[in-house]
Structures are given as structure tokens and as C-alpha cells.
């Protein structure tokens, strides 16, 4: 089973390469456009300025007057605008697509994890990874293009300047290189600050998510102000982190800018004599000044690039933690994102070649929650076709855990599950409809219509839906809904009552026509009559096998076998009467009181 491994994280370069492989055309296009703009257009602009000033002082190589150069400059500017606009589209398409690819890969991977343990942290925190970190990595790849384009531009500029005046070039641009080296060393701390900043931001979003997820509890408790105080504290800590991050970056950036001004001053110092004797024209001076800003930008770009590199590293690291030990390249796996054209089908490929259930055997199943004593230990269980099994026990005894581990929603530590004597290697992919269907204790609904919540992409006609709704004893509620099945149930189904949610989940289970029905305390949100109705309809299904967690006496009486859980272990198995005679735990559960000597 999947374990969180200590695999080294995917490197930034590999992630970059992975993304390029996803969209090679887009990336080459953005690179080609940018290089052309920098090397073609921006070089030309510098030369036009130089020719203009030289045409003033009469030392121009071409006989064109200053007005002609003004006209050329406008023409070049028009061309530049057209190119940059195209470049922007490609750029946005690239950053959006790469971020979308990572987001999809993350979601797909999380959905393939054991369902009950899919996330290592709160959903609010996970969302911050989906939102900011995916963008960060996408942006970083663009800076790489910037770096290349400005690098080529810088090389051309240096050669041009060296040919005009080697001495000025060397002395004015030398200190730049030195400062770059020093400043880039200092950027090692960027990652540290960035990480702190990001995690403070994650705390804020995580808290907002929880605050509004649990808004009813907060309101009922009248705890708005204490929640806000906590929120303010988190905001304040984020401000401090953001400020430190910003100050550090700003000092570095400013160092680069300062170097440009100093460089400009050095040009003045060195070129003074040459300007006096006419070996260095005013046109040459204007070209040097023009290049100076560009070369500074280039150096700045290098700096930003390395900062982004490290930030991207932080982001990749955080996203990988969501992947919890998958193949490191899973994050940038090539996958279609369907920004246009027909969408892929909404239905999973059907389960093929599963023989009908005869016996389901569980042996030695063990699962312990990390950092806690809890879980289940060494559980044996046998379900016969058409039988009705009730799992019972007090809270925290491990009943829900058993269901989850059996269905592959939690990864077992040890133990096996056999279907008709055949070993099931991957319960998570095996125990899905039509083999089994499951209703969790608190089922999740999504803010879609009731119909969509029941179908979840299943292809079924109205008749089948109506049947499932009836089977789930939901039809009288449905009559009350103005929009019937099209009723939108609100975020996480909050517009339905607890019982309605559970029965909607039951309808979701029924419509899947599964052979093995697994219910976790189906009745806890239902009243006696509704529950009775529901069970009647459940039992009306021929040939189904049931595994149910419940404390209800009628169900315990009806059970073909009762599995009594205590502290994560099976205490006893059997029909009700013999259990009541021989099992003290069963007696105390049945009578609804805890015997002193038991505890």
C-alpha cells in the first residue's frame, strides 16, 4: 500500500522540462516571439536613437536627417506593439495551461488516493496549493524565457559597445558583474522567507475556510468575536512575513538598480575625455545610456529568475506534499486540459469480469491511524451471498474504520480481502459500483442539483432515478421541493436536512445496483418511521448482501451475524441470542448502559 516516502522531491528543472513536454508548441512560440522582440526590435530602437543624435552633431553614417529617424522609430514601435500583443496571448495561454495541468494532476491524484485519507491537511490549505503554488510554477517558466531573451540581447549589446569603446565598456560594466554575484548569494535566503510567507498565507486561507464551513457553530455559540480575534492574529503574522519577504527582495532589487546608476556615473567619468576629443560621439553616449538600462534589467532578470527558481522550488515542494509519495513527475504528467473542443465522457469505464459474490472473506485486517493508538487490529470476517451482517460497538471501537479499510478508503497495514476466494489486490478500485456501494456516516453532497448528486455522472434515465429515489424513501421530500430533482442542494448539501442528505446518499447507492451494500450508521439522522420505510425497501432487493454499522435493536435481531467490536478488535461474532448470553459487551450495548465492572 502507498506509504509516504522520503523520495527526493522533483527538481525545478525536471518540473520545467515536464511542462515544456506538455505544451512544446506554446513554449517554443513564446520563446521565439520574445527573442525576436528583444533582439530585433529593442536593438533597432537603440541604434535609431544613436543615429538621431549623431545626425544632430553631423557624425551619422547615413545621410538621413533627424526627422527621418523619428519616423523610423514610430514604424518600429508599431511593429513592436503587434508582436507583443501576440506574445501576450501566447504567454497567458502558456501560464494558464501549465497551472491547469498541475491542478488537474493534483486533483486526479488525490482522487486516486484512499478516499478517507486523501489529503494530508485541511482543504483550505490544499486550496492555497491549488491556487497560488500552481501559478507560481507556471510563472517561473516564463521568467526563464525572459532570461534567455535578455541574455542574447545583453551579449549583442556588449559586443556593440566593446566595438565603440572597449575601455568604457569594461570599466562601466565590470562592477555590475561583481554585484550580481554577491547579491545572488544573498538570495539564498529568499526561499526561507518565501516559505514562511506562504505558510502564513496558507494559515489565513485555511482559517477562513474553516470559519465559514462551521459558520453555524460559530453563530450558535456567539463566538464571532473570538474567531475574528484569531483571524486578525493570523493576518498580522502574514503581514509581518510578507513585509520581511518584501524588504529583503526590495533591497536586492534596489542593489541592481543602484548598480545601473553607478554604471551610468562611471560612463560619465570615463567618457568625459573621449567626448571632449570627439572620439566618443553624443550618439555613442546615448546608445550606452540606452543599453545601461537594458543590461540592468537583464541583471535584474537574472536575479528575479533565481528568486523565482527558488520560489518555484518551494511551491513544487508544497504541491508534492499533496501528492504524498506518488511518482515525482506525476505533478507535470502530460494530460489533456480541454480548453476547447469536446469534453471527455463523464463516466468511468465499466467494471468488467467480476463474478457475482459468493463469499467475501477478510482475514487479519489491521489498520492503525498514524500518531494514535486507534484503528483496527487483526479483524477476520466472512460475508455470504445474500446475508445481513451488522457491525456494532461503542464509539471509537473501530466500526467505521473497518468499513473504510475493507473498501480501500484507508490503506490496510496488513491483512487480506478475498472475493470468492480470489485475493483482491487493490480494494480501492475493486470495491466500487457495481461490486459495492457505500453510504458514509456523514455523506458528502456537492453544490449541484439533487439529480447530479444522485447520478454523479452515471448514465441513467428518469425512471431509474425515480426508482432510486423511492427506494431511498426520499420521494415524499422530493414532492415538497419546488424544483424536484433539479433542486440545488447548496454547498455540501446544507440546504437539505441531515436525514435528507443521508437518504440522497442512499439513492446514490441504490441507483448503482451494487451486489454488496455497505452502510455506516444509516439511521443516525433518520426518525423511526422513515428508517423503517428505508429498511423495508432495502430488504425488498433480492440477492443483495449487506454490511451495516448500527445499534438499532430491530436490525440486530434481524442480523444473520453480529460483529461486536471493542477497542479495534472483534470481540465476538454470532446471532443475537447466543451473543446476549455469552458476550458482556453485547449485553451492555443492548441494554444501553455501561456496566461499572466493564470499564
Amino acid at each position, binding site marked *: 500500500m502507498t506509504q509516504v516516502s522520503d523520495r527526493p522531491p522533483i527538481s525545478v528543472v525536471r518540473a520545467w522540462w515536464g511542462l515544456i513536454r506538455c505544451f512544446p508548441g506554446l513554449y517554443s512560440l513564446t520563446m521565439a516571439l520574445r527573442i525576436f522582440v528583444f533582439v530585433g526590435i529593442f536593438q533597432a530602437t537603440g541604434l535609431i536613437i544613436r543615429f538621431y543624435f549623431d545626425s544632430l552633431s553631423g557624425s551619422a553614417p547615413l545621410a538621413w536627417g533627424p526627422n527621418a529617424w523619428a519616423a523610423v522609430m514610430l514604424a518600429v514601435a508599431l511593429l513592436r506593439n503587434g508582436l507583443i500583443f501576440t506574445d501576450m496571448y501566447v504567454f497567458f495561454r502558456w501560464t494558464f495551461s501549465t497551472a491547469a495541468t498541475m*491542478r488537474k494532476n493534483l486533483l486526479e491524484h488525490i482522487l486516486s488516493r484512499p478516499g478517507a485519507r486523501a489529503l494530508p491537511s485541511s482543504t483550505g490549505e490544499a486550496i492555497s496549493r491549488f491556487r497560488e503554488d500552481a501559478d507560481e510554477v507556471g510563472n517561473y517558466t516564463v521568467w526563464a524565457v525572459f532570461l534567455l531573451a535578455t541574455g542574447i540581447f545583453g551579449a549583442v549589446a556588449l559586443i556593440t559597445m566593446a566595438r565603440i569603446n572597449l575601455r568604457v565598456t569594461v570599466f562601466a560594466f565590470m562592477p555590475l558583474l561583481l554585484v550580481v554575484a554577491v547579491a545572488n548569494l544573498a538570495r539564498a535566503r529568499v526561499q526561507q522567507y518565501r516559505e514562511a510567507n506562504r505558510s502564513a498565507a496558507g494559515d489565513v486561507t485555511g482559517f477562513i475556510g474553516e470559519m465559514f464551513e462551521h459558520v453555524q457553530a460559530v*453563530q450558535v455559540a456567539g463566538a464571532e468575536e473570538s474567531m475574528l480575534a484569531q483571524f486578525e492574529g493570523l493576518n498580522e503574522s502574514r503581514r509581518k512575513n510578507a513585509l520581511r519577504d518584501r524588504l529583503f527582495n526590495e533591497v536586492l532589487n534596489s542593489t541592481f538598480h543602484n548598480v545601473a546608476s553607478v554604471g551610468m556615473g562611471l560612463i560619465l567619468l570615463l567618457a568625459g575625455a573621449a567626448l571632449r576629443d570627439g572620439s566618443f560621439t553624443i550618439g555613442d553616449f546615448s546608445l550606452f545610456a540606452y543599453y545601461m538600462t537594458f543590461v540592468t534589467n537583464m541583471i535584474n532578470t537574472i536575479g528575479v529568475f533565481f528568486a523565482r527558481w527558488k520560489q518555484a522550488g518551494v511551491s513544487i515542494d508544497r504541491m508534492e506534499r499533496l501528492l504524498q509519495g506518488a511518482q515525482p513527475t506525476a505533478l507535470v504528467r502530460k494530460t489533456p*486540459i480541454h480548453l476547447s473542443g469536446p469534453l471527455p465522457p463523464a463516466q468511468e469505464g465499466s467494471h468488467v469480469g467480476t463474478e457475482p459474490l459468493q463469499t467475501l472473506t477478510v482475514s487479519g485486517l489491521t489498520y492503525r491511524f498514524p500518531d494514535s493508538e486507534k484503528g483496527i487490529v487483526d479483524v477476520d470476517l466472512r460475508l455470504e451471498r445474500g446475508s445481513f451482517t451488522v457491525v456494532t460497538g461503542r464509539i471509537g471501537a473501530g466500526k467505521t474504520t473497518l468499513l473504510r479499510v475493507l473498501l480501500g*478508503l484507508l490503506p490496510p497495514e496488513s491483512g487480506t480481502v478475498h472475493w470468492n476466494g480470489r485475493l483482491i489486490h487493490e480494494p480501492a478500485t475493486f470495491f466500487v459500483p457495481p461490486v459495492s456501494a457505500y453510504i458514509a456516516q456523514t455523506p458528502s453532497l456537492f453544490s449541484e442539483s439533487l439529480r447530479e448528486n444522485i447520478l454523479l455522472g452515471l448514465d441513467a434515465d428518469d425512471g431509474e432515478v425515480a426508482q432510486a429515489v423511492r427506494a431511498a424513501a426520499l420521494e415524499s421530500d422530493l414532492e415538497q421541493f419546488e424544483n424536484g430533482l433539479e433542486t440545488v442542494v447548496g454547498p455540501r448539501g446544507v440546504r437539505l436536512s441531515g436525514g435528507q442528505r443521508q437518504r440522497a446518499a442512499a439513492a446514490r447507492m441504490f441507483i448503482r445496483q451494487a451486489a454488496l451494500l455497505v452502510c455506516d450508521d444509516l439511521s443516525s439522522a433518520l426518525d423511526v418511521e422513515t428508517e423503517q420505510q428505508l429498511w423495508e425497501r432495502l430488504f425488498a432487493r433480492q440477492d443483495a448482501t449487506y454490511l451495516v454499522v448500527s445499534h438499532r435493536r430491530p436490525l440486530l435481531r434481524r442480523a444473520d451475524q453480529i460483529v461486536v467490536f471493542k477497542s479495534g478488535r472483534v470481540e465476538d461474532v454470532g446471532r443475537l441470542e447466543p451473543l446476549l448470553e455469552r458476550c458482556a459487551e453485547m449485553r451492555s450495548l443492548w441494554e444501553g448502559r455501561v456496566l461499572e465492572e466493564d470499564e
Partner: protein
Amino acid sequence: MRPTLQLYWRLLVRYLRPQLGQTLLLLLILCINILLQLINPLIMRRFLDSALAGGAMELLTRLALLFIGIAAVQQVASVGSTVLAENVGWRATNALRRDLARHCLRLDLTFHQQHTPGEMIERIDGDINALTRFFAQLVVQLFGNGLLLIGVLAVLLREDLRVGAAMGTFAVITLLVLGRLRNLAVPHWQRSREASARFFGFVEERLAGTEDIRASNARAFTLFRFHQLLRTFWRTTIRAELLGFSMINIAWFLFSVGGAVAFVMGASLYFSGALTIGTVYLIFHYANLISQPIERIAQEFEQFQRAGAGIARIQELFATESRLAETPAAVGEGEFAQGRAGPAGALAVEFEQVRFAYPTDAPPEETTAGLGQFALDGFQLRLEPNEVLGLLGRTGSGKTTLARLLLRLYDVDSGRVLVAGRDVRRWPLQQLRAQVGMVTQNVQLFQASIRDNLTFFDRSVPDARIWEAIDTLGLTEWYASLGDGLDAQLQIGSGGLSVGESQLVAFTRIFLRNPGVIVLDEASSRLDPATEAFLERAVTRLLSSRTGILIAHRLSTVQRADRIVIVENGEIREQGARGALAADPASHYYRLLQLGIEDMGVEELGMEELSAGEPDR
């Protein structure tokens, strides 16, 4: 909704006023920064003219060194202003975040049922993040660059009136064009942000429902919806991005026009002998220099557009009013105005001719989604202080609605709900909710320490009080088993507390608050009988000096009730003393008892009814 300048201004004044000192310091540093930026080109002009005229080397060297020195000081000022602006921005937006969060927390449940937590993250954090830049950069960029622009034009006018006038005209035209385009992209940004909120809201909700998605084999469907929303997200975003970018593009072209104008004018004035070549270079340099502030101002307009979309959405959120507006009378009255009143002991509760239907309004995509909840109509019920009422009824019969009305999560349409003889609408909301406590079946826990979960992050509650409550409940051992005492972190989801255990936390929460009325809404439905029994003593203790409403569909839960009320379709079907009803074979309660699980003597009957539809086996 088109955000006006006035709206920006109001926001700015409101959130910058508390930091007047810092803001003024920021402005001062900015002015120094701008002054230095204006001076350096003048030095360069002097240098060029002296050098070309064959001036003394010593003078040239001094000018060059002065140039370097001023540049260095200017950089320091620049760092200072950026960091200060960032600080001001964060403080302002944090205050805004707090205000918005407070507003939203107070909105009634109708609002929250229409907005996912993911969407709230996007609205409170995402939208305001866009504003952070607005606050951080607005002062620096708009004020600073505006000043720089004016300074450059002033210097140019002093050099040559014609050049100054031409450059001034150019600057005004450029700004006007850009200003015209300002609001073009706002609606697009708004749409883009909405699509983004829906997209991330979707992802958040699915991440919280992985168990059901897996077990229902709905991965392909989830990805299908993911792609649908992603596509909308892309289409709205690219439209907004490109529109915003067109503006910058237009600005760039206009600068080239400005540069060309400077070229042409400079050349003609130079040839006529009005200007030195150093001054031509100065004009060219300043023409570039003003393109910088204009571009920044244009960029700021673009940020305005983004922020505008955010502000519009924030404004919309602020404008959403709770249906539970506090009546002035409630706030004014003395006895309630002084903080939380101490335990007032058991309070009477009365429902007087209550009529209520759940609101059916919703955002456009959900407008027709009237959920057919049972409306209460003419509902009448009175509880004396200390009375414990068992409220029975089918799911959706209106039991929970009564509890919600009592806590004023909704307001009645007509009639009155009275607590201690006072209409709940006339209670200050905080007071009411301090006096009426409720435990629901879904306990909402935070990923935080036990202490924070019990006190809702209220750090002023002393540990001793918390332990006392735990002791009273007889849960000391259970809490101790979590390790780390009150500092133990609760893990949400699997590996953490079971649903039943969460109930224990909820019980402790309510013990701590010590209300006069307690509503247990199916509170024990998730507990196994053994654990339920374990809580008996505590519940007894809790109800002993309080008025209690036990909402249940499990009959064992209402065993401690003095009186039973059975609700159906929003009306009372039957009520009476519990003992009397249980003894009356004609009562509905009696029939429920037979059906249910209480009495060993009638189990055969219960079984028969329950297995009515069972196939022969």
C-alpha cells in the same frame, strides 16, 4: 456595478486614516525620491555640454561623482517608500479583511447556504489580495508618479516654453486616452474573478468529499466538471487579461509618439540655435522619464480595474444584509447592554402563533430552488423554566426549524418567539445566543487544539474553567487520553475523532457557556447506546437547572423529558406528559414506542412491522 472614484476614495480614507503617521512619512520619502530623480538629468546635461565644449576635466569628474552620489541616495529612498507602502497596504487590507469577515460571519444562514467555504476564501482573501496592491501601490504610484510628471513638465517649461507645452499636451492626451479606457475591462475582470471563485470552490468541495467520490466511482464525472469549469475560467480570464493588456500596449505606442515629438522638436530647436545638444539630450531623457510615470499610472489603472472588480464584489458583500437586523430597541436596553449577563438560570420559552417558511431567494443560478421545507403555521408552544421537552417527529417535520428560530438563525414571518418573555428579535443577538445553547448532530470542529475547539479561540477562558466543565461531564479521562491535555491538536477527518467523540467535544463546549436554555438537536443520535449511557449523568447535570428541548427521532433520547410533543407537517400532532402518553395505547407516542426499540416486551410487534417488506429467506 461600476466602482466610482468616490468609492476608491472612501475606502482609502477609511483604511488609511488609522495609519496617518506612517502614510505621511511615506509621502515625505516619496517627495525626496522624486526630487532626486529630477536633479540627476540636469547634472548630466551640464556634464554633456561641458564635455562637448571642452570643459575642465576636474569639473567633469566632480559632476560624475555627484551624479553617482545622488543616484545612491535615491535608491535608499526608493526602498524605504516601497517597504513602507507595503506595510501600509497590509495593515489597511487586514483591517478590511477583518471587517468583511465580521460582516459575513454575522450574515444569516440563507447567505451561507449559497456560498461554499472555498468561495468565501476567494472573496475574503482573493479579492482583497488584489486590493492589497491597490493600497500598497496606489499612494506610491499615483501620488509619486503624478508628482514626478508635474516636476518634469515644470523643468521642461523652464527650459523652453514650446517644448514644455508640447510635452504637457502629450502627457495630458495620453492620460485622457488611458483614463477613458479605464473602466473597459472592469466587468471582464469581475467575470473572471467569479469564474475563478467557482472553480476553486468546486475543487475545495470535491477535496472534502473524496470518500464519496471514490466509493461512488465518480472520478471521471468529477474531472468532467473540472474541465467544464476550467474552460469558463480560461475564457473569462483571457478576455480580461487581453483587454487589460491592450491598454498598456496603447500606452507604449503613445510614448513612442511622444519620443518622436521630442526628436522632431529637439532637432529643429537645436538647428535654430535655441538649444544646446546637452539640452536636446535632456529633453529626450525627460521624455523617457515621463513615459515612466505615465506607464505606471496606466498600470495602476489596470490594477484599478482588477481592484475595481474586487471592490465591486466586496461592496456587494458588504451590501448583503442579514435578515436578522438588530432592532434598535434590542441594543438600547440597559439590562442587556452590559456584556454577557451571568447565568440567569432557567428561562421560559414560548412560540406564539409562529408562521415561517424558508426563504426561497437565491443567486441567479439557484433562483427557483425553493426547498419545500415545512413551513410552520400558527405554531403554539410554551415551556416553563426548568421544563424538559421531548420533541419528536419525522425528518423535515419542522423540529429543527423550531430550534433555529429559537436561536434566531432565521426570523419568523409572523408571530413571536419569546425567551424569558422577551421577543428574540428584541434580544441582542450575542446575548440571546449566550442564553440559548444548542448541540447539533453535525459537530463542527476546527483543525486546532482542543482548547481552541472548546472556546472558539477565545484565549481569555482560563484552563481551570475548561477542566471544571470537563470534570462535571465526567470526561476527564477521555480528554486525558488525547495526550497533550488541552493543547492536543484535533485532526479532522479520519484518524481524528469519530463522529460520536465529536459530540463529546460539543457537549463540553456548551457546558462551558452555561446557557439558560439548552437544545439538543439529535445530539446523541451518533452515539452508541453504551456511550450514550455514559453521557447520561452529564446530560442530567446539564439539564438540572435549565430549560431543555430534546429533539429526537430516537425514543430513548426523550426518556428524560417531562413532556412530549410530536410534530408533523409543522403542526403539533400530539402532546402531553410523557408518562401519560406512554401509558395510553391510543396515543401516537405509544405506537412509536412499540415500533421503536425501547420496550423489550413489545419487540415481536416491532420486528413484525419492520420486516413487512422482507422477502422470504
